[in-house]
């Protein structure tokens, strides 16, 4: 039974799903061109971005708690309500993911192999992750948490390399175990509460000590199985070192976000005593993983691995920030995440483009950007924004997050800072190598730069990032 007359949050889940169906039945041209499929997919994402912007207009952005709440009675025995709701954090993340998807789609627009499958599974993933970010009750949270695994599994299997069997097994092992544990915790909580459980209520629930111990262990394991932190990083690392499709790399890089976001939704404002040991352990493992991955990123010659190490280090930093349960940090993380996701998507897409050009030209990639002026501008902008220069909301918000983390634990903060410096230098080193004019082995005429349309679009993305530096919610009237 539908209790609301107009359900804008359900609509933003439905649009990518409908887009997926339209893409599934879209006719491919007889010459093998996949323009139709591509256009339908991009249109669905743009339509959803418009809806997300509309939601920003409808809500009071700085008001705490979930807004625009929608409730549906899904089942009566057991009584399960599906509740949707958003706050500024979930909306910022959703907007960033959608923009990242458009960038990802641009990166694979000329792909001819299984283009339809790529778009269909990507849109299904987008629908699921949108549902995940608007979930406000434990059941819908679980449904979307698990629902997004199938599209990623299909993408990894269809577009993976010769080693795919190996990392698909790892992917299944880690994520399925996480999901099953989470399912048991969900039903346990539901039973304990004798009915429906909204995520907001979870923080104030009084659990008996044994149950509390199990519930938190289950939640931590299932959420951490998505985050590239030791010992759960194994599947993500193997996926990212093997996948050479920017869209799939992007999707597999968005997946850890679900684990991080889970902590935001599940952890109570005042952490229960039982969590003290978990958190300390997590902090220690977190900073060690950060440092370790950052060092590997610095040494490793593979550009994709450098991007992966950058992503991992930042994810762990955000996770440790969330564990502090400071409302100001949470808001800063939301603003920082917005730029972070867009930057990562852009860097991956252009890194892939460079690698493709390098293969086609049959040259080394040292100084390659000198022959591609448009890519050079965008890639340099993104790298500089990624390392924390005042070009996006990463600059100020990361500064605030770090200063708060340093205040919480100086040792942890220092190691984190060191890891950030290492990954930043790895990215800068890579940029200097790509822009080294002395080593450039092909002429500017030979290189096929990105089209003017894509360049203008990417300049617009740079503009969005710059504006987010000036004011994170610049696009919301009256914010």
């Amino acid at each position, binding site marked *: 039974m539908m209790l609301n007359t107009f359900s804008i949050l359900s609509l933003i889940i439905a649009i990518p799903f409908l887009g997926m169906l339209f893409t599934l039945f879209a006719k491919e041209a007889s010459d093998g061109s996949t323009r139709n499929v591509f256009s339908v997919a991009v249109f669905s994402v743009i339509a959803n971005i418009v809806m997300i912007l509309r939601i920003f207009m409808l809500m009071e952005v700085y008001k705490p708690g979930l807004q625009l709440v929608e409730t549906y009675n899904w089942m*009566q025995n057991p009584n399960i309500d599906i509740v949707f709701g958003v706050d500024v954090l979930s909306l910022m993340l959703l907007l960033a993911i959608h923009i990242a998807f458009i960038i990802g789609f641009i990166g694979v627009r000329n792909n001819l192999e299984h283009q339809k499958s790529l778009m269909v599974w990507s849109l299904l993933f987008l629908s699921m992750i949108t549902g995940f970010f608007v979930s406000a009750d434990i059941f819908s949270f679980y449904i979307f948490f*698990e629902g997004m695994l199938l599209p990623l599994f*299909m993408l990894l299997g269809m577009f993976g390399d010769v080693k795919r069997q190996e990392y698909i097994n790892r992917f299944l092992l880690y994520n*399925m175990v996480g999901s099953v544990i989470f*399912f048991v915790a969900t*039903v346990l909580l539901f*039973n304990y509460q004798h009915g429906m459980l909204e995520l907001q209520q979870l923080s104030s629930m009084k659990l008996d000590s044994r149950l509390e111990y199990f519930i938190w262990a289950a939640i931590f394991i299932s959420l951490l199985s998505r985050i590239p932190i030791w010992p759960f990083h194994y599947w993500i690392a193997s996926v990212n070192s093997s996948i050479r499709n920017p869209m799939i790399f992007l999707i597999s890089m968005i997946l850890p976000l679900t684990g991080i976001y889970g902590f935001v939704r599940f952890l109570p404002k005042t952490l229960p005593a039982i969590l003290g040991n978990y958190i300390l352990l997590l902090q220690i493992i977190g900073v060690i993983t950060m440092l370790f991955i950052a060092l590997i990123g610095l040494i490793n010659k593979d550009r994709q691995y450098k991007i992966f190490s950058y992503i991992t280090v930042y994810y762990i930093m955000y996770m440790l920030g969330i564990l502090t349960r400071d409302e100001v940090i949470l808001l800063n993380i939301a603003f920082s995440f917005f730029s972070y996701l867009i930057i990562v998507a852009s860097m991956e897409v252009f890194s892939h483009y460079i690698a493709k050009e390098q293969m086609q030209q049959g040259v080394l990639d040292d100084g390659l950007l000198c022959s591609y002026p448009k890519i050079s501008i965008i890639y340099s902008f993104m790298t500089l924004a990624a390392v924390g220069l005042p070009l996006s909301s990463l600059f100020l918000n990361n500064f605030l997050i770090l200063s708060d983390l340093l205040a919480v634990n100086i040792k942890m903060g220092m190691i984190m800072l060191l890891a950030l410096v290492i990954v930043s230098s790895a990215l800068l080193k890579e940029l200097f190598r790509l822009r080294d004019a002395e080593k450039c082995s092909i002429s500017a005429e030979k290189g096929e730069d990105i089209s003017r349309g894509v360049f203008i679009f990417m300049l617009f993305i740079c503009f969005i990032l710059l504006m987010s530096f000036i004011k994170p919610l610049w696009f919301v009237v009256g914010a």
Partner: protein
Amino acid sequence: MLAKIITFSPEIFLVLALPLIAFVNQYRSSKTAKTFYSIVKVLLIFSILSTIIFYNRSPLPHLLQNDTYTTLYKVLLDILSLGIFFLSCKWFLNKNRSSALYYALGISLVLSLNLMISAVDLRILVGGYFAATILQYFLLKLNDDDDCKVGEIHYRAFSFLLFLIMVLSIIWFQEKIGSAEYSKIAAYYAKHKIQMLDVMAFAGILLPILFMLGIAPFHFCRVELSGLSILPVHVLSNLIPTISAYAVIVYLLTEVFSKFKEIYLPFIEIVAILSLLWGAISAIKEENIRRFFSYCHIYSLGFILLGILPFNNNGITSSFVYFTAYLLTIWGIYMVLFAFKSNGEYLQELTDISGVFSQKPYISVLLMVFIVSLAGSPPMLIFLGKLQVMDNLMINGAYGEIIISMVALLLMINAFFRIIRIMFFEAKVKNFDHTERRIYICLFINMLFFLVGILNPALFIEQFELLLKPIMR
């Protein structure tokens, strides 16, 4: 008298099919599978309608009784049979084989299983069981393959042995209580203490039904034969008897032998856990598609039996939700199996469907949806059943069973995803034939139910609770 005859119409319609099939087979020159299917279809539809109309009328109240509970299962059984006969028709046309015997045996099987569901006397139950076993045996003999012979011998031996045990048990109840009627047995044990021989007689009734249900450790013949029998027989004998056996077992344990609860609860629990683990572990390495889904059947029934414990209202509803969702899903899978053929040959090995996605993307995606549903992944249909069963287990504090079922689930997920990998990620090894329109029609109807079930499960669950009321406390 006339009223009694009219009340008997569901059975009469089914019986009528036999002389009609024989007559057409004998005297009509141009007869195909379609001819026999048409006869069976019309009579089965009439039977379903009259079952619904006379849902609470009983022609011989001391032997057969109808209520919403029996009607629910009978209608489910008849509709599924109709669907199987529909798809089998094309199979016989493709193979250019005579289908008269298949349809005659099939409709007789439906009749005997319906009688088992309506039975309120152990003599009718054993009669139905005997008829069903014999009919299944003859159905299995429709295969010309010599490999099948060993399986047939095993099946015949075990069925006969279990039938004898069942007869002896009934004789015991008849001698001791003076009647084999369900109500009298229940009334007797409500007043008297249960003795050792009573338990043995009860086991003699229970074991053949569990054998018919096909769960571990009584599954050996079914699995053995499922890989060898012809596809229509495999689907028919895997699905139809299960519905009847499940209906009977729930009714017997809740209404007739409820006083034996302390004895049968641990037994059912062991059988359920065994089925879960056996099904899941065996499925991992299985290479034959049909045997794979037979193991999946064992696993699912294990989950269903685990969910029904301790046979309270919650358990009955939750396991029925799982059972219905399972039937709808496995029926979808069998439909797809009817669609997978290469050069007129229906595929049997998992490797045969390698890369099927590249040639049959829509059907492959549908099969994937059904498989993901079988894995209990949200928001698919079986997830609803899984949720209800887990909720029931939590309520009963059965944490050990929860852990075991989750381990089995993980093993089964691994097995299911192996099929998806083969279909989608591996290179094509065979060219697949054109898929008939009837399969698409069936799949479309199935998906429609599937979608309604996912979007508004309350619609089904509420109705089920109402229909299951006769056995609810």
